[in-house]
């Protein structure tokens, strides 16, 4: 723990901390371009020069390159250092294109800030400026190479930190160029971070291009709702529209970065298709009319059939506040529910996954980066939880062994072992790797007799896992029973939905699931249903099919789902950006997303004749939506119900006032329920249906975000193992017709050895939800031309 003095103030920092970070811990921000806390030092920009007056190093040195040492006396504002930094800025500006007015970085540009604070105003260099040609880097990143100051942050992030190699430095000397070998979209699913880390306008955000200046935006800390990890984000909103989402530093969860799904899927909030007006029997009406009608209809059902005839369905994408309000509403009315999960098994699985976290075995995303062996069981990191892949990469960089046991083909930017195993084989594989003793070859062959190609890999992995001091098991909730008793293993469940953990905490252990409600509707026991921010079609196809049997269906939502179209009474709700809310992520960490903007039709769609309207005394359009929790309270009032004041503290043990900025773990985890039986081989012959997420547009929100939808693959793909394809008589690339219920979906076939034998990998889209657990040749058919 070296002690040193910076600008007359003593500080003690951990060994190995560079002086620039030591100064930052004192609140002294030394100018820098190339140094980044996540990327470390490169010594490329020469901007962080400070004067070392005493200690082991003396003279003018780069503070990012010198580790703090005992006895150092550092002066950041030494005249020599200041002059040096001023000259550096002038040199960096010698080739600058002077195009700040048309540059999107202007206003939050590090180069701009340092140039102005250094007092450099007039270009004294008489020579000509070096120029570069730009590349098209795809839909997310705008390239403007003339502005580059060659700090290497982009290259270090893209190649070293993320592990993708299609973007990087080229050429030498005064001609160094950062780009791809040829124009084309960046391959990394973390490419959006380039815009955040680039200290100049070289790499800027393309979807937000020419939209706004930073100072005009309303900004608020938010939480990403596009997978269960709950990465910290900052939402920027302007003119009633979220224009950009950026990474927010949360050292416990996502560090400094977020994935492109979280960054570019915000469009659902301002989408033109978003329903913003209440509807009664499909006819737009006022909020008060719709609420009164909902109250009358539900009251009628209660009167005719009793309170048990009304049921409530919530979802894993609502905030804890909404889920709590739904519970309070159901309790007040004596109604059934709320149901948050498709079936009882799923609910028990999630509860069991959370229960396993008790006793300090939960690991955060940051801690996975420090693990020395990670087994992903039934989880495809890049698609189920993209930022998990980045943490795995950091672990792998530090020498960790990474194995992914999953039926779906996996690609990761790190050295890892893929064990493509059908779901029913996963428990066996897990047992091989999570035991206290390394499994020997005989045990491996006994456990997986039909996969000889995996034996060498497992024989290599087993001793590594057995020897690991800090291994982590990343698992899907269905495999919660495989959580090893061995306390060495940290646990990291990956759930489906941003607040699935919250739903599992809020839901009663004996609450009905969607399938139970569907059965009750079919039996005529339930006549009225309240669907709150839930899409029956995506949640439970059986429930969606039962909806016409209802007397009344009240839908509260902000997405134009099929359930919205089926609603008898529709009540618009606010999004997370508008109402704010608390989400509980996969490791039971509660995080608060602050509201960033009031609801309203974006100004961009409000205009007439190319500019916003000029009547100033009107009600803003599209401001009807209310927070779902508030709507529940008003609905209770309409029906004369005495809704109890319920805080989610009753379910999580952590109240709204206790949620820390970096998140707080729930203290009330479910008491270990009987873990559901692990997946078994489906009865009869057929291929097990395994659903796969894509990076974009398969999560509940991303499906309704225009930008994310534009990135989704044009055609659905069904993936099969070559043996299974041969068994069905199908070839790679063939056009298929998939029968789902009474509908037919067109898809193409991709054959790959990376798919588990006996598994059919289909996209996780609502249209595919109706597939049975196992399919055969009658479902997958060659398309007749």
């Amino acid at each position, binding site marked *: 723990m070296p002690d040193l003095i910076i600008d007359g103030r003593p500080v003690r920092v951990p060994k190995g901390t560079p002086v620039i970070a030591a100064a930052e811990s004192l609140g002294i921000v030394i100018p820098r371009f190339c140094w980044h806390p996540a990327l470390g030092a490169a010594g490329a920009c020469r901007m962080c020069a400070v004067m070392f007056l005493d200690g082991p190093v003396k003279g003018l040195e780069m503070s990012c390159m010198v580790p703090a040492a005992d006895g150092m006396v550092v002066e950041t504002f030494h005249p020599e250092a200041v002059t040096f930094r001023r000259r550096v800025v002038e040199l960096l500006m010698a080739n600058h294109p002077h195009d700040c007015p048309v540059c999107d970085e202007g206003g939050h540009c590090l180069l701009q800030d340092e140039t102005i604070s250094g007092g450099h105003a007039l270009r004294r260099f008489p020579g000509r400026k070096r120029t570069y040609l730009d590349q098209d880097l795809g839909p997310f990143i705008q390239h403007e190479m003339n502005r580059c100051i060659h700090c290497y942050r982009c290259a270090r992030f893209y190649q070293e930190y993320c592990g993708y190699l299609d973007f990087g430095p080229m050429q030498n000397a005064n001609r160094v160029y950062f780009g791809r070998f040829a124009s084309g979209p960046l391959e990394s699913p973390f490419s959006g971070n380039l815009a955040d880390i680039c200290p100049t306008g070289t790499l800027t955000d393309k979807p937000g291009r020419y939209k*706004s*200046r930073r*100072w005009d935006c309303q900004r608020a800390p938010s939480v990403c709702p596009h997978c269960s990890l709950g990465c910290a984000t900052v939402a920027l909103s302007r003119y009633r529209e979220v224009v950009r989402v950026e990474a927010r530093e949360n050292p416990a969860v996502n560090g400094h970065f977020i994935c492109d799904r979280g960054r570019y899927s915000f469009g659902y909030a301002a989408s033109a298709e978003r329903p913003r007006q209440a509807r009664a029997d499909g006819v737009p009406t006022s909020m008060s009319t719709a609420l009164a009608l909902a109250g009358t209809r539900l009251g009628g059902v209660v009167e005719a059939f009793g309170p048990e005839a009304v049921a409530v369905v919530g979802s894993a994408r609502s905030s804890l506040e909404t889920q709590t309000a739904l519970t309070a509403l159901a309790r007040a009315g004596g109604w059934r529910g709320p149901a948050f999960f498709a079936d009882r098994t799923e609910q028990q699985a999630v509860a069991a996954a959370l229960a396993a976290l008790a006793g300090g075995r939960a690991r955060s995303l940051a801690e996975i980066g420090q693990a020395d062996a990670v087994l992903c069981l039934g989880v495809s990191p890049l698609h189920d939880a993209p930022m998990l892949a980045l943490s795995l990469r950091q672990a792998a960089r530090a020498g960790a062994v990474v194995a992914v046991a999953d039926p779906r083909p996996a690609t990761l930017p790190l050295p890892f072992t893929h064990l493509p195993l059908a779901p029913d084989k996963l428990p066996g594989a897990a047992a091989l790797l999570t035991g206290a003793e390394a499994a020997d070859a005989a045990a491996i062959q006994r456990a997986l007799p039909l996969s000889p190609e995996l034996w060498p890999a497992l024989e290599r992995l087993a001793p590594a896992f057995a020897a690991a001091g800090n291994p982590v098991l990343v698992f899907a909730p269905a495999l919660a029973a495989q959580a090893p008793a061995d306390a060495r293993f940290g646990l990291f469940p990956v759930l489906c939905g941003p607040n699935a953990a919250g739903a599992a905490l809020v839901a009663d252990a004996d609450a009905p699931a969607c399938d139970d409600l569907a059965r009750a509707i079919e039996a005529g026991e339930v006549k009225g249903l309240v669907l709150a921010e839930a899409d029956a079609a995506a949640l439970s196809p059986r429930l969606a099919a039962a909806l016409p049997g209802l007397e009344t269906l009240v839908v509260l939502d902000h997405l134009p789902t099929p359930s919205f179209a089926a609603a008898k009474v529709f009540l618009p709700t606010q999004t997370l950006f508008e109402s704010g809310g608390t989400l509980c992520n996969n490791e039971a960490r509660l995080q608060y997303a602050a509201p960033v903007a009031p609801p309203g039709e974006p100004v961009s769609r409000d205009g007439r004749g190319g*500019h916003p309207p000029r009547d100033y005394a009107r009600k803003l359009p599209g401001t009807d939506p209310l927070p779902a929790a508030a709507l529940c309270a008003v609905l209770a009032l309409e029906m004369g119900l005495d809704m109890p004041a319920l805080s989610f503290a009753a379910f999580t043990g952590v109240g709204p006032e206790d949620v820390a900025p970096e998140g707080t773990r729930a203290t009330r985890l479910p008491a270990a329920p009987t873990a559901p039986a692990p997946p078994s081989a489906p009865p009869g012959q057929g291929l097990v249906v395994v659903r796969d997420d894509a990076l974009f547009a398969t999560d509940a929100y991303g499906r309704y975000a225009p930008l994310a939808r534009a990135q989704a693959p044009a055609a659905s793909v069904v993936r099969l193992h070559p043996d299974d394809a041969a068994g069905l008589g199908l070839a790679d690339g063939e056009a298929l017709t998939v029968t789902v219920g009474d509908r037919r979906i067109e898809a193409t076939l991709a054959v790959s050895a990376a798919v588990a034998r006996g598994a059919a990998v289909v996209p996780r889209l609502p249209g595919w939800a109706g597939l049975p657990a196992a399919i055969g040749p009658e479902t997958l058919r060659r398309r007749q031309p």
Partner: protein
Amino acid sequence: MEEKKDKTGLLREVLDGAAGLAGSYAATLTHLFRRPVTEQYPEYKRPMPARTRGRIILTRSPDGKERCVACYLCSGACPVNCISMQSEEGPDGRRRAAWFRINFARCIYCGLCEEACPTLALQLTPEFAFCKDAIEDFVYEKEDLLVDHGGKDPDYDFYAHAGVAAGRPKGEHIGEDEPVDVKSILP
């Protein structure tokens, strides 16, 4: 002070006072015969200096294109928030204002927007007297603000200097070298 108040002091005071009175009467009397300095405004309009701060215009560059790149600096500098705009990419790839609005009812003609404007697009003109019947009519949109000349700096062209490819290709702006050939192996 007290001992100085003798008889000569009193006399002097009276004389001084009388002289003071006479002096002020004389001063006003001489002013009576001076030519009044008042300018008879509606009949006579004083020629205003070119840099007078009056109504705001959006000028064009020498090639006739809009100078405004909607950089938001004027709205950022405006102390009364009377400027608002939305930037977009024009068909020629140049950044421009999709709409641009100045509320002259709120404008205080401080000229900070003109000082902030990096492309010399926004300029204040000497026109200071313009009246409307309704206050909403003081809200000027882009089409009301755009003029077809270069204002005080007719020769300046931002895109001739700034090294972005909008308008003219890289390497052809003033003071630029040929673009680097990243695939060359020559030293």
